[in-house]
């Protein structure tokens, strides 16, 4: 059986696979940055004393966390044109396509997960610091921006990065919308050349090497940056 394998297919299709990997990395980076930004806003909303804000943020986060990512991906694929239409006030929904709607999907989806991380981060700051910031005459936004959030980010950086590695793996689900991410590219080559075994084994090995080295780096970082209270 092993004799039938032809690993040259990987060499032949490497440029195409690398383009897929590039899309995966790009989507991961954009979603991680966007997710952190909106996640932080959501966390502030969840912790706010203004009930409608905290309730709707909590509802959004819980909804996102209780349905499968695949369902979220298809929801946004189908809703993204409608959302853009209503924001821009256009007459017709634009044609967005799966590869671009995935950016919206993952930003919105990751925001829910990053929200929980940032909430824990904000909680990790001793209450006295908030009091001290207010006593110095800072307003809410200044206290958040200058005192609380920088420390919360630092404390939570390893967790944020670990979640980003999970995101990097989760992005592969867009291949089910026929998007040419790393997995999507390999699926297309595997089917075109009937080299299913070789392609998927190769993809698994690449993901393993990348994710394992990244998570080892995160562990080292964790030891270095921990703030000791």
């Amino acid at each position, binding site marked *: *059986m*092993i004799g039938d394998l032809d690993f040259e297919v990987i060499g032949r299709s490497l440029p195409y696979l690398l383009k897929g990997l590039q899309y995966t990395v790009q989507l991961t980076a954009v979603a991680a940055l966007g997710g952190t930004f909106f996640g932080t806003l959501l966390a502030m909303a969840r912790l706010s004393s203004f009930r409608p804000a905290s309730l709707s943020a909590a509802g959004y986060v819980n*909804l996102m*966390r*209780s*349905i*499968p*990512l*695949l*369902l979220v991906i*298809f*929801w946004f694929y*189908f809703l993204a044109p409608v959302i853009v239409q209503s924001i821009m006030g256009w007459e017709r929904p634009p044609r967005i396509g799966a590869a671009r709607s995935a950016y919206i999907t993952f930003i919105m989806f990751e925001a829910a997960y990053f929200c929980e991380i940032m909430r824990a981060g904000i909680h990790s700051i001793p209450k006295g610091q908030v009091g001290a910031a207010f006593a110095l005459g800072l307003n809410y936004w200044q206290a958040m921006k200058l005192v609380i959030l920088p420390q919360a980010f630092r404390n939570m950086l390893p967790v944020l990065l670990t979640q980003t590695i999970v995101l990097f*793996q*989760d992005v*592969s*689900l867009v*291949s*089910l919308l026929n998007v040419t991410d790393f*997995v999507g590219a390999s699926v297309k080559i595997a089917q075109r050349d009937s080299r*299913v*075994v070789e392609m*998927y*084994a190769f*993809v*698994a090995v690449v*993901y*393993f090497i990348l*994710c*394992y080295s990244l*998570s080892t780096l995160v562990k080292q970082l964790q030891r270095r940056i921990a703030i000791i209270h």
Partner: protein
Amino acid sequence: MHLGIFLEQVPDGNLAWWQMLASGLGWTLATAFFAWIMAFVLGSIVGVVRTTDNCWAVRVGNAYVELFRNIPLIVQFFIWYFVVPGLVLTVKRWVVTLDPTQHQFVTAVICLGFFTSARIAEQVRSGIQSLSSGQRYAGYALGLTQTQTYRYILLPMAYRIIIPPLTSEIMNLIKNTAVAYSIGLVELFFRTREMAEMTFRYFDAFTAATVIYVAIALTANRVMALIERRLAVPGYITGGK
């Protein structure tokens, strides 16, 4: 949203759409149930092995966890569905005797079972390590063997402490069954997608699936909270009273 669509007949069959979704839900729950049993047994074994003082066993256990954590779930599905039968002749001979649904179901259970077991192993390990080492030594001092110490002292405590993380693993597992759609298992997400494509009622189909998944999550959450309260260790943070 018109609920009437769920009562309409499926074009090629004599079932209504709500029955299709219900059958999908059945496959989702069955897959999650069997995968959970497998994951719980395997995860407990690997988790325990990682806390023993045999350094080779610990290394093998760590490698096991890293292997399943660092490959995307959909790729793991492809590996179990395409690569393993392609490489191992005995598996291939067995697989061709199965009908496609059986093959997809068995693959999904095995794949999710291994994937989830690595995560449970991590929880079991951290549960055991969160106990003070005095408990282990007390067991040894009483003359218990290592096996007995785990069986009667460490594991009963560890399991009760890790119920909250295990709850979220159960929910993750149920959500992850949707990825079995990639190999064609007719679970809830597959049926939702099918309904959306065939009736062009995307909004209704996806809303129904969302409601069902949220209902499962809420139910699982309530049930586990009940178990958690019954089994809480007094004096621990999660413990009542």
